[in-house]
């Protein structure tokens, strides 16, 4: 049986941040990374750009083999973990091999969550989570004329834009009343929706698909909505969210809820096992309840903490809690969402739909809880720090509401430069 001191399952942002953190503190102990993809590490976030053609699929990799060699990392690709025997400190792989570990990090991320629609298993459809998915979808986009996208999250909206630009007639069907619910409120979503509508994308919000059936041509589908409307598609993308990959967790003994539950050092309830990234359910910043934050910058943060904890780095700082964050570029417009839509009161809400400009600032007890903008300049990273550090904005409240970029930078210079 192969033995390794550190074993990391997964090879995206959380895993790579952990490798980096471990090697900062421990240059020598054996380290193995297991990736289910038969490829060098890449980010699921880059996949919509592979579909659009912006990214060359041969150049999206986050590390090369030389990196792993230079850092004494054994990179095992094309191997999925099927089970964990925590008592024996070893994992089983799909190939039948077993690896024993001293310290294990689970960073297996998430996979598309398929909705329970009757007939889904009878039609051809796409998802977008792996490089293979992206290449298959890229080929289909070029040929598509009638595309239907289920779900108006980031993956669905990116795909809808790509399909529209490729010349397809696109329809997006979403259960929520607005696009990108959770990251943007109705006014901001309207700006995004209007932009899509102006580009010919049909958005059907607050509806859902109740039935799917194969169409007349090969690869096509007949889509029936809740109100009885019937649509035809020659390309169907299912982008209705993701769910953590935990199919190997049975028998591990670790506490699992919606994700793998971890403490503020990303440790699971079982000794010598940590979890980070989209698979981990960690403390939320606002109320402390454990959430799956599922965003790239937080995966990096959690991976770093897990790596430091595993290596025993005394510089470890505990997780400050997950804050929802996102950036979204659509048809050349920039939308940024930092923080909670529900925490605190609306202190500023400026909407200029004609110029596609929008700003909302949420404040609670004089502290920033959220800031959301479309085509308005502010530094998301500075705002994230202002939230995490609970900086008192009361002395500069009016100035901050008027010019969050300038005052944010001023507070940054005075506080953590």
């Amino acid at each position, binding site marked *: 049986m192969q033995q390794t001191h550190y074993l990391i399952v997964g090879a995206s*942002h959380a895993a*790579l*941040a952990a490798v*980096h953190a471990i090697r*900062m503190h421990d240059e020598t102990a054996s380290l193995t990374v297991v990736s289910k993809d038969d490829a060098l590490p890449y*980010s*699921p*976030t*880059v996949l919509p*750009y592979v579909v659009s053609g*912006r*990214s*060359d699929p041969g*150049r*999206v*990799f*986050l590390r090369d083999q030389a990196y792993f060699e230079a850092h004494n990392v054994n990179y095992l690709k094309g191997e999925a973990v099927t089970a964990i025997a925590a008592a024996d400190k070893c994992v089983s792989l799909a190939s039948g091999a077993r690896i024993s570990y001293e310290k294990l990090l689970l960073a297996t991320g998430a996979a598309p969550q398929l909705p329970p629609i009757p007939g889904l298993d009878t039609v051809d459809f796409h998802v977008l989570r792996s490089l293979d998915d992206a290449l298959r979808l890229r080929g289909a986009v070029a040929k598509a004329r009638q595309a239907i996208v289920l779900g108006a999250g980031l993956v669905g909206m990116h795909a809808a834009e790509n399909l529209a630009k490729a010349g397809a007639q696109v329809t997006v069907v979403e259960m929520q009343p607005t696009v990108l619910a959770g990251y943007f409120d109705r006014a901001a979503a309207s700006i995004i929706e209007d932009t899509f509508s102006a580009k010919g994308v049909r958005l059907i919000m607050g509806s859902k698909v109740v039935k799917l059936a194969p169409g007349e041509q090969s690869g096509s589908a007949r889509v029936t909505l809740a109100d009885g409307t019937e649509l035809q598609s020659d390309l169907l993308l299912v982008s209705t969210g993701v769910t953590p990959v935990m199919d190997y967790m049975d028998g591990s003994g670790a506490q699992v809820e919606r994700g793998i539950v971890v403490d503020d050092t990303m440790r699971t309830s079982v000794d010598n096992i940590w979890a980070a990234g989209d698979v981990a359910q960690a403390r939320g910043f606002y109320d402390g309840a454990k959430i799956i934050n599922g965003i*790239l*910058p937080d995966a*990096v943060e959690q991976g*770093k903490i897990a790596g430091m904890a595993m290596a025993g780095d005394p510089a470890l700082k505990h997780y400050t809690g997950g804050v929802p*964050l996102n*950036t979204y*570029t659509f048809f*050349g417009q*920039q939308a*940024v969402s*930092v923080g909670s839509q529900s925490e605190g009161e609306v202190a500023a809400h400026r909407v200029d739909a004609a110029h596609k400009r929008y700003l909302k600032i949420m404040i609670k007890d004089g502290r920033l809880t959220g800031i959301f903008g479309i085509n308005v*300049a502010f*530094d*998301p*990273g*500075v705002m*994230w*720090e202002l939230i995490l550090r609970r900086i008192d904005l009361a002395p*500069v409240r009016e*100035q901050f509401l008027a010019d969050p*970029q*300038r005052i*944010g*930078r*001023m507070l*940054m*210079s*005075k506080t*953590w*430069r």
Partner: protein
Amino acid sequence: MGAAYNTISFKTDQCDGCNACMVACAEAKSGTADVLNSRIQIVPDLAGRFDLAMCRQCADPKCVADCPAGALTKNMTSGVIEWDDSKCVNCLLCTVGCSYGGIVHNQAAGHVVKCDTCDGDPACVKACPGGALKFITTSRIYQEVGDLEDLFVPGLSGCLGCNTELIMRHTLRRVGPETVLATPPGCIPGMGSVGYNGLTGTKVPVFHPLLTNTASMLSGVKRHYKRQGREVNAMALAGDGGASDVGFQSLSGAAERGEQILFICVDNEGYMNTGMQRSSCTPFGAWTTTTPVGEHGKGKTQDAKNMPVLMMMHNCAYVATASTAFMEDLYQKLDKAIAASKHGFAYLHIYSPCTTGWRFPSEENIEVARKAVETNFVMLWEFTPGQGLQLSRPLDDALPIESYLKALGKYRHLSADQVEHIKSALARNVDVIRGFARNAEA
């Protein structure tokens, strides 16, 4: 040892918000004068001062870790975080990772932009008229000496933020393994360099002379090796007490005889190791445990002995003053001192602000050292018998001495009269050094 990099530094005190840097950057990077396109952003605060938002070229950059496309990379040779247009997908996640406003979406360019230090020749620095922006190139030295072995053991027990430990490690590393080291009583052996229980704290032979006989013992050791036909560096790392007080007789004798020794005086202005007592290098007005501050005492009542000038008057092969805030200068002088010690007596006087004895926060050590020089309280110069005294740094445009005094707890009690005394003594000292420098020119 990791790599060190050149960096752009910004001093808010010297910025008047003229925006010349932003115009120069915008012109260099976008071909327009619109400061919105500048990669360096000067931000007015609410009190009429100025802050800076620009890329810090972080050592462990979050923008790079947060990039899903591999478009950002830290160049390990230049230290610059590089952006690759052909890989960037314009997702803006890097702007979430950066908490310094250092990478931002630029409307004109249509993508994120950041400082690239203009390939090591930053346009903003050249345009800054007030000296607020500087391009610090000291990293060259750390690159050069980074591969040299640190000849002190790890884990010396100096106080937090100790400047003397820096001086010890830098100097011995440069002087090299063919060295016999003398460390008379003081902080230097006190923090463990002579070792414990039969083990030394150095990777070269080290001995612990009396306070009084450092230079004479070292003279004998050096002569012994010479007689054996071995070329070794004989180096002393002594405090100011050991050099200027009871050790002065043997030091003066060795200097006068031209013994082939490198004698480094680490001047922290007192006997800091034994409880912060005054020495003859303690400046006027300074609090020490033997010049206390109370109802009657108001700190030291005498001026400091000008030790480097006294050593210069011995006509040694080489005499210089140095500061850890000016490392390029320090290393140049160290090289000259090593060379001079092959044929005569070399004396290096290095100022070492003491966080514990001078009472200031440990993270401000280098800043205190810099202020001492910028106010002329410490003057950087070097002397050889052939060329006389040469200034290493102009004495004009000195900062007001108050900015130095206020940084130190040991001067907190000073009355206006005492500050006046310090000012006039400082003016006299500056005149003395200027006089020597003028004579050398003539």
